């Protein structure tokens, strides 16, 4: 088979391709901002006005360490009451799993076809080669 002769890309095309991939990165960085809030953190007791170490369930040793870090009970309460919510949306989980599996499946399939071209050009047609 004859070797593939690639096109020579002009400078303008090279610049365009470099910018294209950059724009793509920025778009993907900003997309989550336009989607539903990503952070699963919820403040459960934001309305509560005042806290004591006892009401926060903090032991004496923990209280000492909070104070060494410069926190009083009000400041500590904001952190202590900030909880994560790990509720799973099954539909989104299935979609995400399919996207990741589909991505790898597509990539491996296309790569295999491209790799056959590389090997054929490098080593020649396998049907005419003697077994190694």
């Amino acid at each position: 088979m004859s070797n593939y002769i690639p096109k020579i890309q002009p400078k303008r095309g090279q610049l365009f391709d470099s910018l294209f991939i950059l724009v793509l990165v920025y778009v993907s960085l900003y997309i989550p901002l336009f989607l539903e809030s990503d952070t699963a953190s919820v403040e459960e007791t934001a309305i509560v006005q005042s806290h004591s170490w006892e009401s926060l369930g903090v032991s004496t040793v923990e209280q000492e360490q909070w104070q060494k870090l410069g926190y009083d009970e009000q400041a500590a309460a904001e952190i202590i009451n900030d909880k994560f919510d790990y509720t799973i949306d099954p539909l989104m989980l299935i979609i995400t799993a399919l996207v990741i599996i589909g991505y790898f499946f597509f990539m491996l399939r296309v790569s295999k076809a491209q790799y056959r071209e590389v090997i054929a050009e490098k080593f020649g047609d396998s049907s005419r080669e003697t077994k190694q």
Partner: protein
Amino acid sequence: MTATSTTAENTQRISMLKVLNPFHVWALGVGIVLVGEFMGWNFSVAKGGAYGALIACWVIGLLYSCVAMIDSEVTSTVAAAGGQYTQAKHIIGPLMAFNVGLYLVMAYTMLEAADALIVGDLMSAVAAATGYEGLSPQPFVVLTIAFLAWLNYRGVFMTLTLNFVITLFAFMAIIALFVGTDPLNPGSVLKHSDLLTELPYGWIGVVAALQFGMWYYLGIEGTCQAAEEVRSAGRAIPLGTIGGILTLLVAATLTWYISTGLMPWQYLGQATTPLYDAASIIGNPSLQVVLFIGTMFAAIASANGCINDAARAWFSMGRDRYMPTWFGAIHPHYRTPFRSIIFLIPIAVSFAFTGLLDQVITFSILSGLLGYTFMSINMIKFRKMWPLDVIKRGYIHPFHPIPALVLLGLCSVVYFATFLGYGASLLSIMAFYIVASVWFVMRRYQFVKRGDQFTMPWPRPKGY
């Protein structure tokens, strides 16, 4: 000493200098990662509590041990710049290689941006503490990236020698802090019995913690990028990489032990500089200074290593025409991929200034994770296509295929962990790689010379 070109067509090509030894490889890998011990790992405490973070530390440690074993075998055999990108090109195919190249560039450039932000924030904090409130961190971000890029431009030997010195200092700072906590007398300084609690979110929190558990080790695989510049790839890469992962396992365990013995888990889970805070609680001013410098050095070493690795991955893609060929040039005097180094400076700065640190870090972690998924597939194919008796390897990792299968399984769990906290970002980043893949197939692949993608002196692969 200069390396010679490998193909007949490339006899005029200037190649990179082979000047590095195992210590430089260690400095590159550990240098990129160690900042994760000074900050970042502790978000796993917020996700799953202190014990959840410890389980994450060891489970992700297992993941990275598999990465180090696989990397050591494949890189000691495919000794070329580009690391995993070059491996993908030789073992799986061009589209996979293009994606792996992008994983590397994105993971390192975004990590570099986060590192530079840390340096800027630390400088602002120092200014505030000394009476100069309101100093902007942004000039320090630009200066850090510009200075390190200049260093990288001038030569890899000086770059990684500096990394060795500052990384060693940062590691010793963790040891000094450990000694300063009087570990032989539990309860005197470290108060684990009073501060450790049960799992606050149960086992789902432990799974969620795995995402940030990656901060303990993220980037150790970067040692492969030095493959074309080490004097002996078969010796230096396995020694540097496996020595690096052992160092990180020790550092990660000490970091967890010190921090959880001094701070309530809720505070630790949101702390910006947990090790520095640990030194502050102990009340030893000398330790505070050492930890401040250690934190700064760790961030600088990480940014330095990231510039080195991102530039080499980008350069390799340019050299193979996966990206514009203009980037595939080596400086005639310094023998560094200078155009790639310069090109990535404004990009890293712009990432740092987006104000989207969460997304930038998630992009970096997920790109790394995609790369590890590739490694497991790559290892299985590598042994199948070139069995042990067919080509000579610099290092042969034991227990194959267990590390590859364990790695694949753990990657799947970390995808789930990322979904729990950053589901929308995960889909958005996957969309980026899918669109980029289609773009490569439809547009870039026409510029790629097929036969040139295979440069190793190996026999025809089995099955092809």
